[in-house]
């Protein structure tokens, strides 16, 4: 166990190590079991806001922030873009995740910050986040109703 870490014995963060370096350490399996709630999503404003349903999908990109309703809290954010590659509009994650999470293996060893980012990206792709982001962005920027 990392020096100075406090292990949560029970509650929603059971199995999570709270560490002085600012990381919350947990296994990928544990992460998948902790509900994440949406905090905020937004557009990359200098790429311009879409003015119609027919706006170019390649110009529509932004960010989204999620976290756990715990103290301390897990924080997970990533970028997305609206993709129309296969004829359907879809929100897809772009790039790596940004977080306060260090994934550990079953022996409590760090997986490393870069492998963690890669694994978090895979975990994000398993989540149903797209509709939440769509709803938030639509409400925030007053987009006309359209389907994703």
């Amino acid at each position, binding site marked *: 166990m990392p020096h100075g870490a406090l292990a949560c014995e029970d509650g929603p963060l059971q199995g999570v190590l709270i560490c*002085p370096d600012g990381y919350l350490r947990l296994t990928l399996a544990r992460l998948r079991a902790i509900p994440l709630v949406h905090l905020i999503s937004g557009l990359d404003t200098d790429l311009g806001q879409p003015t119609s349903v027919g706006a170019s999908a390649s110009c529509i990109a932004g960010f989204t922030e999620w976290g756990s309703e715990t103290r301390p809290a897990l924080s997970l954010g990533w970028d997305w873009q609206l993709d129309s590659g296969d004829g359907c509009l879809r929100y897809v994650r772009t790039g790596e995740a940004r977080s306060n999470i260090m994934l550990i293996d079953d022996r409590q060893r760090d997986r490393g910050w870069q492998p963690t980012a890669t694994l978090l990206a895979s975990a994000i792709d398993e989540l149903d986040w797209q509709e939440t982001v769509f709803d938030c962005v639509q409400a925030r920027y007053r987009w006309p109703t359209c389907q994703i």
Partner: protein
Amino acid sequence: MRVISGLPSHLPDGLYSKLALYRRQVFVEKLGWQLNVQDWGETDQFDRPDTVYVVAEDSDGQVSGCARLLPTTGPYLLADVFPDLLNGAAPPREPDVWELSRFAAINFRQRSTASLAQYSASSAVALMREAMSCAAAQGARRLVTVTVLAMERLIRLAGIHAHRAGPPRIVDGEPIYACWIEL
């Protein structure tokens, strides 16, 4: 890009004034931050004799970037203004932890359509690495910084080992974070 770093008393004559003016141009006039500003520039309570500055100049000697470094053993921005960004942890008070703040890398002489509002990417990465080296020379092992999404993206783009200290605070619809940068 030429980079100069040091305490205010060690900076070349006139550079501190140019830096203050540059900070006003970036943070107040361009980004709209609500900061204490005078005709001659932008400073705050964390601009002290022991503050270390990293200043980038272009080939014409104009300021094109800046960063501010403070030891966490004294007052600093994150501890005094944004401690909630630390996810319940106590603000660091360690001689080998320094704070990075007032980071910008805009050359107002160059037009940019970059999505990183206060940075041109390649210059920003170079300046970031200079600031990290400067901090390390002061004995820092880690940096902590209050930052915005654009800078968090930039840091990741540069392949720098950095991570959040906790969830963001939403300010005017945009997230701000505390981040750790490992040196």
